[in-house]
């Protein structure tokens, strides 16, 4: 197409203008893409190069000393894992249930289904700091859980629900309508349809949703400052305060003079974690798809 434009010489002013516009637009689009690439590469390489030096086995397995300027991040990784575990353990069943209800059971025109969808749409847009406010008021104060792993996990669970529901719903949407009709025509109950027909097909979508949720949760900071707290030692119970990785980075870079080097390394660890989570997910999803049926 492009070649044709070049080989047929433009005629008159309109032609020249048109020619410049066409070639110019191509140039602008390439430039824009190059600009975005350069910009993001700058960010990523900055974190990788500056964080690489401090990354070691010891860094991952030692406790932080001197307010985090020295030592490692082991307790922080443990806290992060615990908060994530609570978050997913609570939100995944709820999210899965809601997704099944929305995609398979309520009619598309049902008032309740519409209401639930609406509320999730808004929930997805709620700023994370507002989740923090809510978690602080509800989980920490009203339920009396205080600044704890549990409060943080529950707050995050509320936060990842919309994204979880949306992507699991996509998974169920991947089930061909012919399969659902076929199951109905055989008089299969919803329960067996769900377990034998829908879930097996929807699993990649569910995994993708789960991982997206984990990825969102592991990246979160603002919702946790006032719920899971700052304490950088090993948490002793679910009700103990614990510092997650993202808060560690924030604290090191803002409140600790000379904490920059370890902040870089922690940021690199967090970056790798997010990348790894995404990669594993797509791998599991793909392998499941390729696996034959028995």
């Amino acid at each position, binding site marked *: 197409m492009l070649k044709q434009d070049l080989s047929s010489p433009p005629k008159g002013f309109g032609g020249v203008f048109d020619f410049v516009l066409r070639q110019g637009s191509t140039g602008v689009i390439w430039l824009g893409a190059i600009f975005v690439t350069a910009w993001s590469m700058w960010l990523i390489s900055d974190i990788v190069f500056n964080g690489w030096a401090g990354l070691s086995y010891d860094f991952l397995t030692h406790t932080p000393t001197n307010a985090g300027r020295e030592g490692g991040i082991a307790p922080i990784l443990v806290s992060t894992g615990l908060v994530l575990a609570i978050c997913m353990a609570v939100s995944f069943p709820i999210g899965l249930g809601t997704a099944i209800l929305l995609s398979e059971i309520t009619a598309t025109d049902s008032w309740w289904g519409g209401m639930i969808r609406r509320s*999730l749409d808004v929930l997805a847009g709620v700023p994370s700091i*507002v989740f923090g406010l809510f978690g602080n008021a509800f989980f920490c104060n009203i339920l009396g859980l205080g600044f704890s792993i549990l409060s943080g996990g529950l707050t995050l669970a509320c936060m990842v629900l919309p994204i979880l529901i949306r992507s699991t719903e996509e998974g169920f949407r991947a089930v061909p309508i012919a399969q659902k009709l076929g199951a109905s025509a055989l008089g299969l109950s919803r329960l067996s349809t769900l377990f034998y027909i829908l879930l097996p097909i929807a699993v990649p979508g569910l995994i993708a949703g789960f991982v997206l949720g984990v990825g969102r949760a592991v990246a979160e900071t603002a919702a946790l400052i006032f719920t899971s707290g700052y304490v950088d030692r090993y948490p002793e119970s679910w009700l103990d305060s614990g510092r997650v990785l993202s808060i560690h980075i924030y604290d090191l870079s803002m409140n600790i003079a000379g904490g920059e080097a370890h902040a870089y390394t922690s940021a690199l660890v*967090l970056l790798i974690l997010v990348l790894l989570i995404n990669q594993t997910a797509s791998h599991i999803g793909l392998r499941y798809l390729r696996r034959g049926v028995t």
Partner: protein
Amino acid sequence: MILSNGNILSPSTHDRFLTGILWCFSLLASLILGLILFFLVYNSLPVLWDIGISKFFLDSSWHPSEALFNLTPMLVGSLLIMLGAILLAAPLGIVSAIFCRFYAPKVIAVFYQSLIELLSGIPSVVYGFWGLVTLVPLIQKVNPPGTSLLAGIIVLALMILPTVSLIADATFANLPKEYFQGAAGLSLSRFTLLTQIILPASKSGLLTSVILAAGRAIGETMAILMICGNIAQIPDSLFSPVRTLTANIALEMAYAMGNHRSALFVSGLLLMVIIFALVSLAHRAGKGSVYA
């Protein structure tokens, strides 16, 4: 026999049980928003009761310890940063999506797409950290103090760019294949196809992507907190420090008491109002369900 529904062993009993559980879960899911609103309002009421709404916009400044609660500078700060980030990210994001789908060779497109996806996964605290250690010193050299509206806009633009780009890309992907076949049949050039068919047809999707990105921008906390200087004033230039509604909460929540704490919940409420407006706008633009 077919009419008899009450048999305990009939499979529909299991189904009713299943449906019941699913309803419980989804009610719980939709209850969360209600709870959030309830607690925001509940914790805001004391100060609203005490001093009224108008004070939040008419007081001389934000000095909660002296019972001065003017939120205007923070509101202006939030809106300015959002606006700037959108002005930068919307065109770039849309161009990115167009590049990926219509201009880039296959290999580059795949690479570029995964780069955008990677960007969307990077935690906001990492963006903030990068801004703090790399961008702020650069701006400082040009015009001190460095922590500024400009830094916020630049970092936030990069953060919301993937939102615009990914939703725009999904919009392009959902266009009917017939459009492309039809265009090929008429041997339209790529430029004509793009400007005459694809962009007009994706208008509502692109609008939605920008609105959702705006929502993400207004709600962003950590990055802004780290790079904008957090001074509660209406900025007089791109290089002045600003404080946003979100940063205000994050900064003062730790020690706020009484009316002060209550005032922070009012800022939360204000954020929710803005988000409500944006989501309704997105609904109107997209005519359907939208999630961030």
